[in-house]
C-alpha cells in the first residue's frame, strides 16, 4: 500500500558539461569560478552567441551500439563512463538483478540534431531521408532512456520524461514513486540534452538567446546561453550520506513559453517539496535557482523565492558556468547541489555584474564556504512545467 515518501540515498552521481568530464571537473570549475561558456559556432549556426559545448563528442559509439549513433547518445555514453558510474550500476545489478533497477531519463530534444543532418542530406529528387538515419534510435524521445538502459543492461521500468527544461528534475519524482510502490528497488535517474540547431534557432526566434554570456539576475540580463550536458544519479532505498529528501511538481497553467509573472506555480512546487521533505523554509541553506538569465524567468522566480523562503536564504543560478542545458539542467544542477553539500560551498551568481535591484532574493555575488546541509534545486520548463528538488547531507 501507499506510504509517505521516504528519503532515498544517492549512492553514485556524475555529470559531464562544458565544464568537463565528470564530477571533479564540475567541482574544480565551480570552486575556481571558471565558466565553460565560449563564444563559438555550432554546426552550421551563424548565430553570434555563447554556447556551453562538451568537448570529446567526436568519437563514434562502439560497434555494438552503432545503431544509436548521434550526438545525444555519444554524450550519454561519455557521461555514463565518468566517475565509475556504470561500474556502480553493474555492482548493484549483480546484487539486485537488472529487473529491479528502473531507468528514468530526461531529455528535451534527444537526437534531433541527427534529424537536422538527415534533412540536409535529403535526396534531391525523391526527397527521401538518407538510409543512415534511424528515427527510432535518435529523434525519438525514448531513445535516450532506452540507450541508457541498453548500455547499463538493466530492465526495470524504463521511460523518458520530456517536459522541456524540467525533464531531468522530474525523473527524481518518478523514480521515488516507482520505488515507493515497489516497481523497482533502485533507479538510475538522469538527463541528456545536446546542442542542436532546433534549440539555438528556436530560442533565438523567441528572442531569448543573449548575444553576451548569460548573466543571471543581472540588471541588464537579456537572455540565455545554450549548453549541453549529461548526468546521472543512482537512487537506492535507505539512509545515506547524500539523500533526495523531497520534490514538488506543479503546472503554471499560464502560458506556453513564458512563466507566470507572479511565480505562483514555482512557489507551489517549492512549498510541496518542503512539505514532502518535512522541512521548514528556514532549513534551506542554499537554493540553486533555475535562473536562466531571461528577464521574465529571473523576475518570476524571485517572486516565488520571496513568497516561500526567508529573505536571507542564499540563492544563485549556475547557468553562468554551463549555460542552460535544457532537458539536462535538472540533473546538472542536482549534481551541483550534491557537490555543494559535500564540499560546504554555495556558489556565486557567475557573470552577474550588477544585481537587478528589482530582485528581492539574496543572490550571492561572492561564493561562500560554509556547511551546507539542505539544498533546494529549481527547474522550470516551457508549458509551465515546474519541479523543485530538495537534497540533504547527513547531519
Amino acid at each position, binding site marked *: *500500500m*501507499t506510504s509517505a*515518501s521516504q528519503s532515498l540515498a544517492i549512492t553514485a552521481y556524475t555529470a559531464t558539461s562544458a565544464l568537463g568530464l565528470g564530477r571533479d571537473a564540475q567541482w574544480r570549475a565551480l570552486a575556481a569560478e571558471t565558466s565553460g561558456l565560449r563564444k563559438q559556432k555550432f554546426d552550421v549556426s551563424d548565430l553570434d552567441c555563447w554556447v556551453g559545448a562538451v568537448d570529446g563528442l567526436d568519437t563514434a559509439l562502439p560497434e555494438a551500439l552503432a545503431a544509436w549513433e548521434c550526438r545525444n547518445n555519444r554524450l550519454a555514453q561519455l557521461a555514463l563512463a565518468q566517475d565509475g558510474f556504470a561500474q556502480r550500476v553493474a555492482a548493484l545489478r549483480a546484487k539486485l538483478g537488472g*529487473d529491479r533497477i528502473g531507468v528514468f531519463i530526461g531529455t*528535451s530534444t534527444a537526437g*534531433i540534431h541527427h*534529424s*537536422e543532418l*538527415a*534533412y*540536409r542530406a535529403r535526396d534531391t529528387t525523391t*526527397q*527521401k*531521408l538518407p538510409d543512415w*538515419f*534511424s*528515427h*527510432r534510435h535518435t*529523434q*525519438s*524521445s*525514448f*531513445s535516450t532512456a*532506452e540507450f541508457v*538502459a541498453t548500455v547499463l543492461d538493466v*530492465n526495470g*521500468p*524504463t*521511460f*523518458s*520524461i*520530456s*517536459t*522541456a527544461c524540467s525533464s531531468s528534475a*522530474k525523473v527524481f519524482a*518518478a523514480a521515488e*514513486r*516507482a520505488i*515507493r*510502490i515497489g*516497481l523497482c528497488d533502485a533507479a538510475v535517474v538522469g538527463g541528456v540534452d545536446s546542442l542542436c*540547431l*532546433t534549440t539555438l*534557432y*528556436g530560442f533565438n*526566434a*523567441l528572442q531569448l538567446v543573449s548575444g553576451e554570456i548569460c548573466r543571471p539576475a543581472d540588471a541588464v540580463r537579456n537572455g540565455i546561453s545554450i549548453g549541453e550536458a549529461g548526468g546521472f544519479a543512482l537512487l537506492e532505498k535507505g539512509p545515506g550520506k547524500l539523500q533526495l529528501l523531497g520534490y514538488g*511538481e*506543479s*503546472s*503554471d*497553467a*499560464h502560458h*506556453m*513559453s513564458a512563466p507566470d509573472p507572479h511565480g505562483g506555480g514555482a512557489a*507551489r512546487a517549492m512549498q510541496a517539496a518542503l512539505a514532502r521533505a518535512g522541512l521548514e523554509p528556514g532549513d534551506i541553506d542554499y537554493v540553486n535557482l533555475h535562473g536562466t538569465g531571461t528577464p521574465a524567468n529571473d523576475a518570476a522566480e524571485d517572486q516565488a523565492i520571496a513568497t516561500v523562503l526567508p529573505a536571507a536564504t542564499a540563492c544563485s543560478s549556475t547557468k553562468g558556468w554551463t549555460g542552460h542545458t535544457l532537458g539536462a539542467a535538472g540533473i546538472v544542477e542536482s549534481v551541483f547541489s550534491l557537490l555543494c553539500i559535500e564540499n560546504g560551498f554555495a556558489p556565486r551568481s557567475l557573470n552577474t555584474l550588477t544585481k537587478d535591484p528589482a530582485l528581492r532574493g539574496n543572490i550571492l555575488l561572492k561564493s561562500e564556504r560554509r556547511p551546507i546541509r539542505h539544498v533546494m534545486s529549481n527547474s522550470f*520548463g*516551457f*508549458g509551465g*512545467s515546474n519541479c523543485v528538488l530538495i537534497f540533504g547531507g547527513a547531519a
Partner: protein
Amino acid sequence: MSKVYIDAVGLAAPGLVSWDEALPILRGERPLVPAPVSKYAPTLLPANEQRRATETVRLAFRVGEEIMRSGVDVSQLATVFASSDADMMVSHRLCMALAQTQRLVSPTDFHNSVHNAPSGYWHIGARSQQASSAIAGHDHSFAAGLLEAITQTQADRQPTLLICYDAPAPEPLHEKRPLASAFAVALLCAPDASSRSIASLAIESLHAEAETQLNDTWESLRLSNPAGRSLPLLLHLAERKSGPILLRRSARSSLALQIAPV
C-alpha cells in the same frame, strides 16, 4: 499490489469517434468502419491558444475533453501525457526550415515542438495547476504512460488523467516512422472505487514475456499507432471482461495487468 480504478475513458481512432460510440463496435455489435479521425476544435482553449494549437494538441484535447464531459472537474486533475513522437508535423517543419540557408524558424513552431506541448495547453485550458508529466516510450508509450499514471495514483492517492496520443508524420519523415493514422486514448485513474468506477486494474508483473494480441479486426489497428496498444485494455473495458492483459513495455518485457469490471 493494490488496485487503481478506471473511472472514465476517452477515445479517438479510425472508426472510433468517441468512447460511447465505440462501445458497440468494441463489443462486436456493430462493424468497425475505419475512417480518418476528423479535425477537432477544443472547447477548453482560449481563442489565442486555439489559434496556436496544432492538430496533435487538438487530438490530445479531444480525448481529454471527453473525460471532462463525463462530469469530471478537470481543474483538479494531475495528468500524465504519453506519446512516442510528440508532434512530428512540427519537427518536420523545423527540420525543413533548418535545412534552408536562411534557417527561419517559427517561434510558435518552436514552442509547439516540446514533447509536453499538449500538457502545457491542457493545463492552461483546464485551469489545472496540478502536476503534469510528459512521457515517451516509443512503441511502448501507452504501457509507459499507464505505468506512470497507476504509480502516481497509488503513490500519492490522487486521481490522475492519462492522455496517450500520436499522430502520423508527413513525408519524408513518415517513411522512417510510419504511423498509419492518428489515435488517442484517455483514462481517468482513481485510487479508490466509486460509483463512477468501470473497472479495477492491478499490476501483476513488469516482467511478463508475451504480449496480448488481438483478432484480425483489431490487430492491425493495435499496431498502427503506439496509442493503439491500448486496444486490449479497451476491449476488456467495453466487454466488461476480467482477465490478464499483457502490454509490451520494453524490448524484453511486458507489463502484466489484471483487469476486473466493477
